[in-house]
C-alpha cells in the first residue's frame, strides 16, 4: 500500500464509518445488528448514476446500500461458525458467572474494580475464584476474537511471507500488547510511505489475525461482489482499499498510526500466497469465503476452570495451518477452492447436542433473578442457531451460494464468475 502525503481524510477508506456517519454495526455479545439511515438507502440505480459523475459519492451510496448485507454477513459468521459460537458462549458464561456470583455472594463486595482487590489480605476465596475464572474467560475470548493492536517495524524481510508467527516474549509485541498470548500470528503488511522531501520510508505493519479479520474479509467480499453485479467493475475497485493518502504535519510515526488497518487483510494475505514466484493472483471470491469459513470452524474450548483453560485451533491458528500445509498458488488460482469439511462433523454434532440440551427460552422462569434474562436471551439465540442448522440437510455454511443468489434476486448481470484481483498493479504492495 502506497501512502502519499496529499489531502484526504483517512476515514474515507473506512467501510462502516464515514466521519460521524455509521453505516452499520454488529455486536456479537448482544446478537445485535444495528444499521444507520436505512430508510434512505439508495437504490442500485442511484449508485449507477452516481458512479458516472462522482466516484467518491457513489462509494458512500454503495456503502449505505450494502450495509445490511455487510452486517448480516458478520451475523452469520458469528452464529454460523465454531469460533463465533465459542465466543458467544464465552460471553454468556462470563455474564452468567457474574450474575451467579452477585446473587450468591454473601459478603460485602469491595468497591469496583473488583480485580484491584485480588491481592488484598481480606479478599475472600470465593471472590478470588470468581476473578480468576472471569479473567480466564476473558482471555479465551481474546484468543479467538480480540486481536491485539498491530505493531510497526522497519524490518522488511517478511514482505514476501503470508503469515509470521511471533513469540510475544521476544518482540516489541511483548511490550505493546494488552493481550499477550504466547504467540501472535500476523500478516506482515508492506507499507511504503513517501514523505514530502521525496524520501521513501519502508515499514512493515504486523497485523494480528483473528476472527474479526476473517469475518471482515467475508463482508467486504460480499459487498464488493454485489457492487460488481449491480453496478460494475468500477465500483468494485472503488470499494477495495487502494492507495491511501494521509495528511499530517507530524512525524512519520504519527502518519503510520493514522493509517487504518485494511479490512481486506485476508485478500492481501492469500494474494501473497498466490503470487509466489512472482506470478499474479486471480482468486475466485468463493475461495476467500471457503478459506475464512474453514479457519473459523475449528475452534474448541477444551477446558475452562478457575486456574487453567485450554483453547484449541483458534481462527488464526487454523488459517496458519491451511496456509502452511495446504494452499498453493495453483490451488488458489485454479477456480473455487475445494476444502473438505468446512465444519468438521464432530464439531457440528457437539454444538447441536449442546443446543438440544439447553432449556427452551420460553421455559426459563422469569423469577427476577439476574440469571433469568441472560438465559432467556442465550437460549433464544442458540435455539435459533440449532433450528437454522437443522433446517439445512448439512451443517455447513451456505454463504458461497448466497452471494450468487442475492445477485440473481437483484437482477444483476449474469456471466462468468468475477475474479478478485489481488495483484499489485499499482494498487497496493500488500
Amino acid at each position, binding site marked *: 500500500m502506497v501512502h502519499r502525503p496529499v489531502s484526504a481524510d483517512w476515514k474515507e477508506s473506512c467501510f462502516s464509518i464515514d466521519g460521524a456517519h455509521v453505516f452499520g454495526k454488529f455486536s456479537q455479545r448482544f446478537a445485535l445488528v444495528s444499521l444507520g439511515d436505512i430508510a434512505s438507502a439508495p437504490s442500485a440505480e442511484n449508485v449507477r448514476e452516481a458512479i458516472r459523475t462522482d466516484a467518491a459519492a457513489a462509494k458512500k451510496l454503495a456503502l449505505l446500500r450494502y450495509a445490511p448485507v455487510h452486517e448480516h454477513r458478520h451475523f452469520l459468521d458469528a452464529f454460523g461458525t465454531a469460533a463465533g459460537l465459542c465466543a458467544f*458462549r464465552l460471553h454468556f*458464561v462470563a455474564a*452468567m458467572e457474574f450474575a451467579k456470583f452477585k446473587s450468591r455472594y454473601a459478603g460485602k463486595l469491595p468497591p469496583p*474494580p473488583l*480485580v*484491584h482487590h*485480588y*491481592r488484598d489480605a481480606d479478599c475472600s476465596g470465593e471472590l*478470588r475464584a470468581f*476473578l*480468576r475464572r472471569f*479473567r*480466564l474467560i476473558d*482471555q*479465551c475470548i481474546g*484468543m479467538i476474537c480480540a486481536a491485539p493492536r498491530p505493531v510497526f517495524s522497519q524490518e522488511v524481510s517478511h514482505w514476501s511471507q503470508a503469515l509470521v508467527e511471533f513469540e*510475544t*516474549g521476544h518482540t516489541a509485541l*511483548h511490550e505493546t500488547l*494488552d*493481550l*499477550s*498470548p*504466547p*504467540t501472535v500470528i500476523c500478516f506482515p503488511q508492506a507499507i511504503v510511505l513517501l514523505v514530502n522531501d521525496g524520501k521513501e520510508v519502508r515499514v512493515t505493519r504486523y497485523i494480528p489475525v483473528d476472527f474479526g479479520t476473517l469475518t471482515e474479509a467475508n463482508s467486504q467480499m460480499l459487498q464488493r461482489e454485489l457492487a460488481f453485479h449491480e453496478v460494475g467493475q468500477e465500483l468494485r475497485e472503488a470499494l477495495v482499499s487502494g492507495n491511501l493518502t494521509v495528511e499530517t504535519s507530524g512525524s512519520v510515526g504519527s502518519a503510520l498510526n493514522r493509517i487504518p488497518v485494511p479490512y481486506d487483510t485476508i485478500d492481501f494475505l492469500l494474494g501473497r500466497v498466490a503470487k509466489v514466484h512472482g506470478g499474479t493472483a486471480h482468486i475466485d471470491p468463493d475461495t476467500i469465503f471457503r478459506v475464512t469459513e474453514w479457519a473459523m470452524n*475449528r475452534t*474448541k*474450548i*477444551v*477446558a*475452562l*476452570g*478457575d*486456574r*487453567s*483453560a*485450554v*483453547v*484449541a*485451533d*483458534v481462527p488464526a*491458528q*487454523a488459517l*496458519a*495451518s491451511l496456509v502452511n*500445509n495446504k494452499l498453493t498458488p495453483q490451488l488458489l488460482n485454479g477456480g473455487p477452492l475445494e476444502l473438505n469439511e468446512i465444519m*468438521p462433523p*464432530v464439531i457440528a454434532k457437539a454444538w447441536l*447436542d*449442546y443446543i438440544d*440440551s*439447553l*432449556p427452551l427460552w420460553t421455559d426459563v422462569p422469569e423469577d427476577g433473578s439476574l440469571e433469568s434474562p441472560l*438465559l432467556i436471551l442465550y437460549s433464544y439465540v442458540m435455539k435459533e442457531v440449532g433450528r437454522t442448522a437443522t433446517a439445512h440437510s448439512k451443517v455447513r455454511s451456505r454463504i458461497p451460494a448466497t452471494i450468487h443468489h442475492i445477485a440473481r434476486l437483484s437482477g444483476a448481470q449474469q456471466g462468468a464468475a468475477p475474479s478478485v484481483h489481488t495483484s499489485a498493479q499499482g494498487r497496493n504492495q500488500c
Partner: protein
Amino acid sequence: MPDIPAESLFSEALASLVGPGEALRILKNIGTGRIAELNGVLIRFFALVEGGDVYVDDTLKSANPDRPSLVPDALQPEDGLVLVRIREGATALALPVLGIALGCLKFAGGGGPTELLSPVLEGAKALWENVIRLRSPEDDDAIVTLRYMACVNARKGLVGRVHYAASTSELIEGTSMRPARTVAALRKLHELRVIDVSWEDQAGDFSKARNSWSIGL
C-alpha cells in the same frame, strides 16, 4: 444448565475417543478426584511442549492488574492462570492419545494415583510431538490404528486398572483393516516412536499376530 465443565481436559480426550456416554461411565469408574489430578498433569504437560502455546497470566498477582505481564518461567498453575492454546487438530488425536496414555500410567494396576515425574512428562512431550506429525490422508491407517489402540486402553486399561497391550490380531479385527495395512500402520507408528511393542518372537518381526502394542510413553 449444562455448560463447560470446570475441569474437562481429560474428559474431552476420553469422549472424543469412545463417545460421551461411554466416557461418562469410565469417568465415574475413575472418580472425580483422580480426574482433576490428571487434568492438572495435562495442563502442566503443555508447559513442556516445545513451541507450545502456554500462556501464564499473572495479572491478578501483579500490583497493577490492568497491565498484564508475562512470566514464562512460572509455569505452575498455582502461581498464576494458565492458558493453553493447542493447534492443528490436536484435540482429534494427540490430546486423546496422550490423555489416555497418561491416565493408564497413573491409574492402571489398581493403585492410587502416583506422582508423574519429569521423565514421564518428557516422554509425554516426545509422544505428543510425534503424534502431531501424523497427517491425513497419507497417515490415515496409522491414525485409525492409534485411535483404536487408545480406545482399547481406555476401556480395558482405565476401567480394569490393568496394564493393557493390544495384540496385532486384535487391532486388525478392531479396525477392520486388511492385515497388511495394519502391519504397515504399526510399522509407521513404531518408527515414529508413538508405540511400544512386546515382540511375540523375533524382534522386528512385524508379521506375528501376537505382538502386543501399547502407546509409547
